């Protein structure tokens, strides 16, 4: 059985850049658009890199800023200054 790590964002302007960055760093991820929200899922592991997001938005970005737009997550969280990772370990 597959194990999908996922993250769901509100569909707003911030999220568009985040989704772009995530899609770039996670080629195996699938992006789904639902009313008012965007869900990104990927087998086992999904990573958000600060550097990629900063490239997309053209300014400094704190990983915690994401908290403004996230609706839901699935997976164990590993967060530090540079990344936010969702992962199933088994």
């Amino acid at each position, binding site marked *: 059985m597959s194990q999908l790590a996922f993250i769901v964002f509100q569909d707003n302007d911030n999220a568009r850049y985040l989704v772009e960055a995530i899609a770039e760093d996670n080629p195996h991820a699938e992006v789904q658009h639902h009313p008012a929200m965007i869900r990104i899922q990927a087998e086992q592991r999904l990573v958000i890199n600060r550097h990629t997001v900063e490239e997309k938005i053209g300014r400094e970005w704190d990983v915690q800023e994401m*908290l403004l737009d996230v609706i839901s997550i699935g997976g164990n969280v590993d967060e530090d200054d540079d990344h936010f990772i969702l992962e199933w370990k088994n």
Partner: protein
Amino acid sequence: MATKNKKLSLKDKYQYLTRDMAWEPSYQKKEDIFPYERFEGIKITDWDKWEDPFRLTMDAYWKYQAEKEKKLYAIFDAFAQNNGHQNISDARYVNALKLFLTGVSPLEYGAFQGYAKVGRHFSGAGARVACQMQSIDELRHVQTQIHAMSHYNKHFNGLHDFAHMHDRVWFLSVPKSFFDDARSAGPFEFLTAISFSFEYVLTNLLFVPFMSGAAYNGDMATVTFGFSAQSDEARHMTLGLEVIKFMLEQHEDNVPIVQRWIDKWFWRGYRLLSLVSMMMDYMLPNKVMSWKDAWEVYYEQNGGALFRDLERYGIRPPKYQDDANKGKHHISHQLWSTFYQYSQATNFHTWIPSEAEMNWLSEQYPDTFDKYYRPRFEHWQKQQEKGERFYNNTLPQLCQVCQVPTLFTEPDDPTQLSHRSLVHDGERYHFCSDGCCDIFKHEPEKYIQAWLPVHQIYQGNCEGADLETVVAKYYHINIGQDNLEYLGSPDHRRWQAIKGNKPLGADDSKDAA
């Protein structure tokens, strides 16, 4: 002062800003300061191993939360100023909000106090801080929900006395007893119940597809508070997973205790969410996703991944998961049929789904809807057309544990009502399922205390012997306004007037006449 060491990592810095402010007490005994940490049998050998589920200091918390609130209230203001309620898909939709405000919002308040309590009583300061942040978040949720609904309350019936109703109305004892159960348990069970089973495993089913549904039905205020609340939920979910892993890693003796709690709270939560199944399949005029699909994505798929991850600790999926998976084809229909019959005693309206809606249900539930449920609705519809709208005047039997009427069927036989009972201390108790019966068996002393609304009416504790008096006087349900069939209700008539279809109803037409 010389600075010798190297700079702290983000993680270590956060620890200095939270748990390092705590100290080993020496003037009072630790067990007097933290008296509730041991009685559940959970063994914690080292709180230092607690992994902070998120690293939010208060300054950042204030900053981010203020930003969220500013946005949210700007939308509430705009919604009220522009009479946003006129832009929803259909006034039937508001009935889902009535259920939400009376059934869910008071739970958020209970969560606020529950987390404040555990946020004081864990001896690990890292866990305390995480719980306190959730506590104040939950206060946010109840308050923003009240504010989001405030405008609807001015234009629709059934929302006006939500907290009073939550304490009294028969079906609202389902959510209320759920939360009372968690709050009356010890701190570790509380977190397993609410942070893990509810927030992590099940709450997505309420907030994600239902809120997306609110968006799809033009309800800007609700979708905004829903998603804004969910942005806190990501932190709460992380806490839920962390607390489970922490207990399991601390001591192997914790595994069976945690497993039993997971079994119990999965089933309890599943029964509670049956109300959401009905909201999604029947109460949203524009449908986004069936309950069955939502269950597959948000429980079978996510829950599957989660429980596989937890296997390494010796945890297996919840005991009655298979029964719940089978129920996905049935529960929304069974519940809506029940509420249809008992609308005289609810603060929201019910109705027969339109032909288009029934066709959608047939598509979504190809194996069950036409076979078991459509004929029932069509029969009632005929009666209604003849002017004999059906109301059931016998009070239902409630499950002693989940307090839902015993309306669900056997997992493997949809024609057979599921019913279990047992005798405890010379008295017989009734249950809706093996799941609920098991929960009772493990803690009979707790569940015999349940305040069962139907029993209470029979015992004369609800200000009247007949249902109408109870509904009007004890529940504060305004008869003829809040309750009964949707078609022809004051809400319906006002909605028609808003849409310019037909004039207002009798009670609203005084000035217009």
